[in-house]
């Protein structure tokens, strides 16, 4: 393997000093001066209703209130993949918390006080609060015109129903597959909704100046996508919309696309010269951004006695909420990949996106795969039991290999799933579980494999500008967001490797769409791969300029030149060493006193030119919708108190094929963080709605996210490296994947320990204890 200087090394985060010293700026740190207005939202108290009347007279009398806007002032609709969401509700509300209007005031207190005085009169309509009800033929329709909404070509809404999209994937012959099976197992699994709970709540500040230019400062994963959606919704030219995204206090998918940011952007257009700030409270963060979609999954699987899966029928019904402009693509992604990381000859997948009168579902770390894998990997474990085959062995037999055909017909990319399975199993001594000394406690072992592909349009792209400074330090201009994963550092490592410049000498700033080049979004765990390629290309471009200049001045052939230790060197003349700082801005002085060269600025971009969503809508065959998959496996030893149901995570191992870990410490950080986030969704996070569709726990008092005390006793991160041929230095994304195996792995360990199978999330101590008690009573 090639010896790299910065790639594969645990380079210190380049944003560390910014963040630990408090120098890092977030949107709410920025001073917008005296002309700052504060917006507060008038929110629906009904899950489904017609708005009969909005009385703002009392609210307008509050001192400090400037203006109040409602749906009659703005009719704009927006959305990333489907335009089904309104800036303000138009005569009808579809979930509790939906924005009906906004009060704009000179102080946040005045805005808040006034909102409380706005009287909204509703005519309640019947609400549908879960997807199975919404699918009934007599269910009230949320969007009677769904088939007319502008959308991407790969969405298939069903007119006259609540189905916003239905992804069908068909491979082989299901009937024949089941006929060949010795064992057939059928069951249903359900997963509720979840919240991202980023530390920093959503915030956006918008200013529309007197020249007609819109600037928005937002806490976002998607500056360019926001610019595009603002321009589209407001009918502005892209050059007149500027999105500035400072540091972000956590995203997890919740700050992808556009949610509340559209509101201040739209308000600003009527408030020329002012800046308008909308900052969400923790409650709003729960109720009106995105939530992770809920799912009911029906699985039927057949396998032969020797452990080969012959057929899989997987039907997933998604609770996608009142607006699915982003969430429908979660449904789509899973509809292509619900075979899991297995090669199965006969597959039928139906992934159905259903409107409900609950908050909009949308992207959340894992993009539907966590939900899908809970059912599938639980089922795999049970199937193995029925076949009397060790479940790890069963996974080995069926694991997808490079070159195998996926359910939609494209070939699997190079990947090390077998290696991940073996290493995760070995790390916890699979099959040799420890025995607790405490008679009230039992220990179970759990296992799960996973895969996930970036879900994105086929032409999602990245680009990079790279500027050399006088001292040969570099400013790297890119538009991905460092939302904690270490993206800026990894990009600096890639540029640094090619240009022989230490990453610490490379500055990567947060983006401004006016100055930084295009990036689709920081989502899909694709940024290391996609933007990494763009940065690599920008660095190669700069290197070419450097070599060509050296060739012009010193006449060395380009192919004998190389960069090392921030200098140009020559393979055929060891005496030639020209430090970069001597010329990368000022050029090289020749004998007659004139200069050659000038500032070196690299430019690079990347778009996957092989990707396509053109396929047969009845089978999904024919396209190449996914660029590649990242695979992995995880295993754990789980100690359970038989009386209380309390669970202790003794040892958790997670192996993931990163292709090439550009910064192994950051990969291990993702493994730890992702596992913790995943485990919390299993063990205690729990969204509860009442019968009127109101969220009962929009707070961190009753929606629990893990603390330092809830970390497993031992985490073993394992990095496997089967290079991704088109990845920068072989790298592929791993960010979301690290939370995928958590839920089935726990459910499988519980069955191993107690003999009970839990088929719905969350799996709280209470649920374990009461299920076990019930089971004991039966015996």
């Amino acid at each position, binding site marked *: 393997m090639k010896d790299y200087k910065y790639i594969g090394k645990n380079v210190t985060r380049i944003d560390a000093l910014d963040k630990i010293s408090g120098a890092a700026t977030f949107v709410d740190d920025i001073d917008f001066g005296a002309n700052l207005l504060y917006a507060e939202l008038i929110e629906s108290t009904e899950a489904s209703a017609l708005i009969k009347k909005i009385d703002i007279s009392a609210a307008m009398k509050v001192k400090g209130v400037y203006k109040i806007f409602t749906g009659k002032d703005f009719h704009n609709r927006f959305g990333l993949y489907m335009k089904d969401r309104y800036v303000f509700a138009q005569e009808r509300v579809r979930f509790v918390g939906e924005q009906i209007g906004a009060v704009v005031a000179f102080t946040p*207190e005045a805005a*808040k006080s006034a909102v409380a005085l706005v009287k909204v009169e509703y005519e309640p309509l019947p609400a549908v609060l879960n997807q199975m009800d919404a699918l009934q033929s007599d269910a009230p329709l949320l969007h009677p015109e769904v088939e007319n909404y502008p959308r991407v070509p790969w969405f298939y809404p069903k007119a006259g129903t609540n189905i916003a999209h239905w992804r069908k994937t068909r491979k082989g012959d299901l009937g024949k597959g089941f006929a060949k099976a010795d064992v057939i197992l059928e069951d249903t699994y359900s997963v509720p909704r979840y919240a991202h709970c980023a530390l920093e709540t959503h915030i956006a500040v918008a200013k529309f100046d007197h020249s007609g230019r819109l600037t928005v400062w937002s806490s976002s994963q998607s500056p360019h996508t926001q610019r595009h959606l603002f321009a589209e919704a407001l009918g502005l030219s892209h050059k007149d919309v500027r999105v500035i995204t400072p540091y972000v206090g956590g995203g997890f998918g919740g700050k992808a696309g556009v949610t509340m940011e559209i509101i201040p952007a739209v308000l600003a257009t009527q408030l020329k010269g002012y800046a308008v700030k909308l900052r969400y409270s923790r409650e709003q963060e729960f109720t009106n951004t995105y939530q992770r979609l809920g799912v009911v999954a029906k699985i039927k699987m057949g396998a032969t006695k020797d452990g080969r899966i012959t057929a899989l029928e997987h039907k997933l019904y998604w609770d996608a909420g009142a607006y699915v402009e982003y969430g429908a693509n979660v449904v789509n992604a899973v509809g292509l990949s619900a075979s899991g990381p297995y090669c199965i000859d006969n597959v039928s997948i139906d992934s159905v996106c259903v409107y409900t009168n609950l908050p909009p579902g949308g992207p959340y770390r894992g993009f539907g795969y966590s939900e899908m894998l809970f059912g599938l990997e639980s089922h795999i474990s049970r199937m193995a039991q029925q076949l009397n085959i060790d479940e790890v062995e069963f996974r080995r037999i069926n694991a997808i290999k490079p070159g195998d055909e996926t359910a939609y017909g494209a070939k699997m990319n190079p990947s090390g799933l077998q290696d991940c399975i073996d290493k995760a199993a070995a790390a916890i001594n699979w099959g040799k579980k420890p025995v607790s000394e405490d008679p009230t406690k039992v220990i179970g072992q759990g296992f799960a494999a996973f895969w996930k592909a970036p879900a994105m349009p086929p032409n999602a792209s990245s680009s990079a500008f790279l500027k050399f400074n006088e001292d040969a330090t570099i400013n790297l201009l890119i538009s991905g967001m460092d939302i904690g994963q270490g993206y800026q550092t990894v990009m600096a490592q890639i540029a640094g490797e090619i240009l022989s410049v230490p990453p610490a000498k490379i500055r990567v700033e947060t983006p401004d769409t006016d100055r930084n080049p295009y990036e689709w979004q920081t989502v899909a765990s694709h940024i290391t791969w996609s933007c990494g390629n763009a940065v690599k290309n920008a660095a190669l471009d700069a290197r070419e300029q450097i070599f060509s200049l050296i060739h012009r001045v010193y006449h060395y052939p380009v192919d004998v030149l190389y960069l090392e230790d921030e200098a140009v060197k020559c393979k055929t003349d060891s005496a030639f060493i020209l430090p970069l700082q001597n010329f990368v801005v000022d050029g090289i002085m020749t004998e007659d006193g004139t200069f050659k060269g000038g500032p070196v600025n690299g430019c690079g971009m990347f778009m996957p030119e092989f990707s396509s969503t053109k396929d047969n809508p009845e089978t999904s065959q024919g396209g190449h919708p996914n660029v590649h998959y990242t695979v992995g496996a995880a295993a754990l030893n789980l100690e359970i108190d038989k*009386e209380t149901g*309390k669970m202790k995570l003794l040892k958790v191992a997670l192996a993931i094929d990163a292709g090439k870990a550009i910064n192994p410490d950051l990969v291990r950080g993702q493994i730890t963080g992702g596992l913790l986030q995943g485990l919390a969704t299993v063990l205690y996070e729990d969204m509860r709605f009442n019968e009127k569709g109101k969220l009962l726990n929009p707070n961190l008092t009753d929606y629990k996210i893990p*603390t330092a*005390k*809830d970390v497993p006793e031992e985490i073993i991160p394992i990095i496997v490296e089967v290079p991704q041929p088109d990845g920068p230095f072989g790298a592929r994304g791993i960010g979301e994947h690290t939370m995928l195996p958590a839920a089935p792995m726990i459910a499988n360990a519980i069955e191993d320990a107690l003999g009970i199978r839990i088929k719905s999330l969350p799996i*709280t101590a*209470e649920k374990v204890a009461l299920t076990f*008690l019930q089971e004991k009573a039966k015996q």
Partner: protein
Amino acid sequence: MSLAHEFAYYKPLRLEEALSLKQQYGNKANILAGGTDLIVNIREGVLKPDLLIDIKRIKELSQLNWGNDTLFIGSNVTFAELIENEVVQKNFVLLHDACKTIGSTGIRARATLTGNICSAVPSLDSAPALLCYEAMIHCAGTGSKREIPVREWFLSPRKTALQEDEIVTGISIKRIPDSYGIYIKLGRYSGEDLAQAGWGILMIGDKQYRFAHCALSPIPKRAYHIEDLCNGNSLNADLIEKAIALIPSEINPITDIRCTQKYRMYISEIMLRRGLMAIQKRSSGKYIEPRKLMGDV
């Protein structure tokens, strides 16, 4: 964070000033010490006071005095102070256990024991300890003073025996010689949580007992039936099972967002059994970390 509700704020130096304001404003004035419940309640619109009386500068309310076998805990005394206090550590183990389970490190540095009992929520962690120690709540009004036994303090959820012109000046607890206590709490995870269920147990000598619970009834309560059964008997497996059998007569739990009625009923048996076994170990000098009894770190 902005508070939409406007109120006047006063920070008196003397108790008399605070009392006279309280007399004037009645329930339109709220007392601010830690503020960890109060400010959240104002922000959420649950409380809309005209006046906040900040008592943190009133020195006599900040005292933590030990004398005549009695600990007086002024109403400004925080949980962090109680946890650090050697008298509490040595003589009021049950209270010490409870204090450690309340909120997070940050909350405990601000929140006060007095504020806790004034909020009077059913899940009040400090209540079982105070009920077992038979604490006295010291209240003052303009020109009046009275002491209310803690068993008469809780009237209904969020309602106490305090009159609207009164201020709690502190809580006193008397040392009970030869006693061992433990507080066991069930939470949803190892991080800070409100109790799904809580049991305090005090063993006096080897044949007297006090039991109290929180989050299992509309108000925190002593479990007198269980005490009657146990008093006069030495602790053994048989007695423990008999005590557990009486639980349904002592608690009246509900299903809420934190827990079902069924689990609360069931888990109380486990908690009481483990608590009694742990108290036996404590009385024989063994170190017990009560959090671990229910699987928390």
